[in-house]
């Protein structure tokens, strides 16, 4: 089943040229017009009106396994990813136990291979137990079968400047990158939402923009000083964008990420007191949303990362201050980016492929992902119906999490098919079957 052949007929490649794509033996065997004759025995998929894109790569996914299988498992999270158009996800390290040893990252990697819906690339913790006190065995994780290249204490900031410096330096030995959750802890003690106009009225403890911006400013200077690669997770403020723009102009090796929810939603939603809107970093003001969109369009922000953070129902069925932070995002990312970036005229589908596939694969040093739709390339492809519109219904999602902030919204764009190693994990907008990895 894995290596049947498929003829994707009349797809719009990156939304530009229309062509047939022949998928055979896990790779793109041919691209061109009227490939019907050379595609004997291939299953034909009519892709007229559909946009073909490289499979999406998420640099920021919480799969919750091991430890919080009530919230999500590798199996359910990667099903959601495939349905969302992804062919690779990076599993964040804040599981229980924390992914701070070769053993845990290999476990997650193996669970991903067994599931077979997408490539699962574990992110390794920077510090033991995310505690910020002692470097985890980064080299052992890099050398493990999981080949970890992205390291992050995400959820918690590596706030100690010496620890951050050492981590940035150390991962140079194996071409790693530190993905920083930029949040100055003292400025955000007890923080509940963006600090500003709305927090003042609601009486919720504020999470000021400066707590993010001051860490990013420090980290880009550290990255410059030691000549390292820095990735900034979930950038959420206009001020952060300015600092990253400044750093890039100086040639500092920094990349940045924005989440779909920060591209669409604002702090005004907190007035509803519905904890589905509680997230870290928090939803910001309208001016931030527009600065983030502009930054993604002009390349200051390199990628979209979902920060998919499923939670069990009870974690959100409570008063705001007691609720967990985080939102699901894998199954809505494509639509939200289409809504905010493409429908608005800020980006093309080719740009979309860059920020959701090519660039994140490059940051994660992920071979075989984020490749062009050309002959000989691995067949990681997603087919999108850009004209479709759908109503977001969390109860119909594959993720265990029901905490989608987009619930009830009508969004454009629907994933029709996802090819992973040439195998359709999604067909007709529904899960098909997983890819079966060969023996190693």
């Amino acid at each position, binding site marked *: 089943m894995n290596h049947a052949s498929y003829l994707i007929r009349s797809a719009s490649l990156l939304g530009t040229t229309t062509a047939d794509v022949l998928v055979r033996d896990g790779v793109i065997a041919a691209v061109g017009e009227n490939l019907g004759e050379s595609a004997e025995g291939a299953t034909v998929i009519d892709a007229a009106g559909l946009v073909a894109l490289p499979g999406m790569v998420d640099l920021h996914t919480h799969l919750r396994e091991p430890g919080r299988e009530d919230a999500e498992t590798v199996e359910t999270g990667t099903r959601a990813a495939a349905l969302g158009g992804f062919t690779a996800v990076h599993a964040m390290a804040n599981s229980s136990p924390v992914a701070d040893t070769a053993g845990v990252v290999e476990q997650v990697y193996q669970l991903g291979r067994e599931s077979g819906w997408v490539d699962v690339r574990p992110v390794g913790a920077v510090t033991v137990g995310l505690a910020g006190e002692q470097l985890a065995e980064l080299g052992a994780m890099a050398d493990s079968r999981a080949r970890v290249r992205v390291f992050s204490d995400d959820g918690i900031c590596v706030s100690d400047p010496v620890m951050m410096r050492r981590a940035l330096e150390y991962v140079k030995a194996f071409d790693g990158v530190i993905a920083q959750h930029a949040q100055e802890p003292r400025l955000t003690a007890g923080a509940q939402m963006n600090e500003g106009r709305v927090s003042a009225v609601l009486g919720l403890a504020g999470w000021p923009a400066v707590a993010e911006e001051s860490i990013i400013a420090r980290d880009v200077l550290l990255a410059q000083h030691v000549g390292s690669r820095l990735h900034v997770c979930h950038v959420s403020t206009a001020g952060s964008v300015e600092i990253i723009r400044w750093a890039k102009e100086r040639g500092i090796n920094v990349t940045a990420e924005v989440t779909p929810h920060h591209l669409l939603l604002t702090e005004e939603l907190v007035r509803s007191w*519905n904890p589905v809107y509680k997230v870290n970093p928090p939803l910001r003001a*309208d001016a931030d949303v527009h600065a983030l969109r502009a930054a993604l369009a002009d390349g200051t922000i390199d990628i979209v990362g979902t920060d998919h953070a499923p939670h069990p129902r009870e974690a959100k069925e409570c008063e705001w201050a007691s609720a967990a932070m985080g939102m699901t995002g894998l199954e809505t990312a494509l639509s939200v980016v289409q809504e905010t970036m493409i429908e608005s005229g800020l980006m093309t589908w080719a740009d979309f492929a860059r920020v959701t596939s090519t660039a994140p694969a490059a940051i994660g040093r992920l071979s075989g992902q984020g490749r062009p739709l050309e002959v000989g390339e691995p067949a990681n492809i997603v087919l999108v119906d850009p004209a479709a519109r759908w109503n977001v219904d969390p109860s119909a999602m594959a993720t265990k999490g029901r905490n989608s902030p987009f619930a009830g919204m009508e969004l454009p764009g629907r994933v029709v098919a996802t090819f992973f190693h040439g195998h359709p994990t999604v067909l007709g907008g529904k899960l098909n079957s997983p890819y079966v990895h060969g023996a190693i």
Partner: protein
Amino acid sequence: MRHLLDTESLSRANAIAILDTAREMSAVGEREVKKLPALRGRTVVNLFFEDSTRTRISFEAAAKRLSADVINFSAKGSSVSKGESLKDTAQTLEAMSADAVVIRHWASGAPARLATSGWIDAAVINAGDGTHAHPTQALLDAFTMRAHWSRLSGVPSVGGDLSGMRVLIVGDVLHSRVARSNVWLLRTLGARVTLVAPPTLLPVGVEHWPCGVSYDLDAALEAGADAIMMLRVQAERMKASFFPSTREYARRWGFDDARLARLDALKLAETIIMHPGPMNRGLEISSAAADSPRSTVLDQVRNGVSVRMAALYLLLSGGMPAAHAPTSAPPAAKDHS
């Protein structure tokens, strides 16, 4: 209007309806038999997730004077302290057929969550939530001010508002649900409010509030005030560097004996001094000020019962017009500009 959750969304008509009804209720408190049959057979639950004897007994007295059955449910020593969720507690009360839930909670927004979650059908009255709102406190403050304002102008208070009244709210605005509720209600009633506080104890974003802001209490007094509301300041705030010491706080922002004398010098003969209680004598207010004829502290306590009777009565009897603006935000911010 089904619930009383905050004052930001309380219309002028509803605010005045509550104040006018409270005035009728206050007459009951002066009778030998302090009881009306209005809520006979109805059940009011005082659901307190945070200690507040003063507010609880005020609500209890209000409900009992209206002949309601009152159940006091304190989180301390109950299943709540053993980790029961707000949802389960609410549904337990629902199963016991509570008609109104008076809720005090340490978390901002908990009453709104209770009212809009679908967990419960009862009317919800916010008796103070976190640092968000305390609408019945603001209403009793406004009731106290309106009585004073009408006495000065010689105009009957019924139907009236606070147009033109100059009000200073002094102290820890940042952590004060009393200030947050007063600012909106007093704006709605036409008063001119100035907040006076150390810059550390004002929220970022206060510049968008419908009031003035000053860091200088003496200058604010100089500019004139008809009511001065002192807010409670917790001495522990000094540990988090909100101010250097209680003495420095008292010197700069406390209503001390010198400032009490200053009112006479400024010919502010009719200016009242208010405090929601409990007071820190010697910190935000001196004993002489608290006990002076200008002080309305005990009037406020007395008026609290009347205002809470009015709120309970209007919510449970359906006597409040439905002109209550929605408190929830639009479902999504969709903006392509």
